[in-house]
């Protein structure tokens, strides 16, 4: 009797859906920013408040915007990877110090092995963070030469993420005009 197989079939279909659901990370919310221009900002630099950073100044470069803070625990896990990236010398890594005290931020960098950033923008009140839809620090945006966001990493950059996704994408974007 084929009728008896209907509940079994429904069970199998449900099982497959639930199994796939278990492998997804609920913190990775699809970002609406991919393919959109990086939101504009003009912020002071951590090392020298007189100087500013703006995405406009970085047009023509492929660059990473890494959102971090001294109060962010996961940033500690990410920091060695960022330092490794900085040692390569061919990547432009800019920091967005999100809702942090400048002195805490400087102290944290000194304590955790150094500063991997070309420059750090200070987002003291978190408004630029909101414009970039930041909800879980650390987050990293990959921005191309035209100033368009190409990729976003939510949470710490792992070596897997770096070698498997970020570096190949950067290489490809560098080659484009």
């Amino acid at each position, binding site marked *: 009797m084929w009728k008896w197989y209907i509940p079994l079939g429904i069970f199998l279909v449900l099982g497959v859906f639930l199994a796939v659901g278990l492998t997804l990370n*609920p*913190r990775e*919310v*699809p*970002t*609406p920013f991919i393919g959109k221009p990086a939101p504009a900002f003009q912020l002071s630099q951590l090392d020298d408040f007189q100087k500013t950073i703006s995405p406009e100044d970085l047009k023509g470069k492929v660059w990473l915007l890494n959102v971090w803070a001294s109060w962010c625990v996961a940033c500690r896990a990410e920091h060695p990877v960022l330092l490794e990236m900085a040692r390569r010398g061919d990547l432009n890594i800019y920091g967005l110090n999100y*809702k942090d005290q400048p002195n805490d931020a400087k102290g944290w960098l000194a304590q955790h092995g150094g500063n991997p950033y070309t420059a750090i923008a200070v987002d003291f009140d*978190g408004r630029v963070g*909101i*414009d*970039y*839809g*930041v*909800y*879980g620090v650390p987050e990293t945006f990959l921005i191309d030469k035209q100033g368009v966001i190409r990729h976003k990493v939510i949470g710490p950059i792992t070596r897997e993420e770096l070698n498997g996704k970020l570096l190949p994408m950067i290489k490809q974007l560098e080659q484009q005009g």
Partner: protein
Amino acid sequence: MRYLILLSVLVLSSLPVQAKEAQPLALDPELEARANALSRELRCLVCQNQTIADSEAELAKDLKQQVREQLKAGRSNDEIVDYMVQRYGDFVLYRPRIQPTTLLLWAGPALLFVGGVLILLVSMRNRAARAASAEPSAEDISRAERLLQSEQEGKA
């Protein structure tokens, strides 16, 4: 007197430091009610099963403040919701918009209900048809007669 001046200078200079935490901007109760109603429609992405009205996360407080400021600046609810969706995606909405990707979500319960009613109707009709066709066929009658006959023969 000099001490009094010194004291007031000290007190005043410490005020901006304390004022860092964002204070509720809207003391206007009507605006605050609108801000609260809107905050209950928006998901806090840090603690995903709470609205930004319920959540005590820093980001939720900041976003609530954004809602207040924008309402005060005269923006409509739709404009503010658009502002949030632009930054945080559709996931920020507790009440998903009706669009191609959410069609099944919205129509799902109705489809299930209609499907269930259809299955019920068909099975009821089948059962009624079976009950109606309960007239015994010629073959059944002859079989019954044979059985009865054999029973009588057995008794005899």
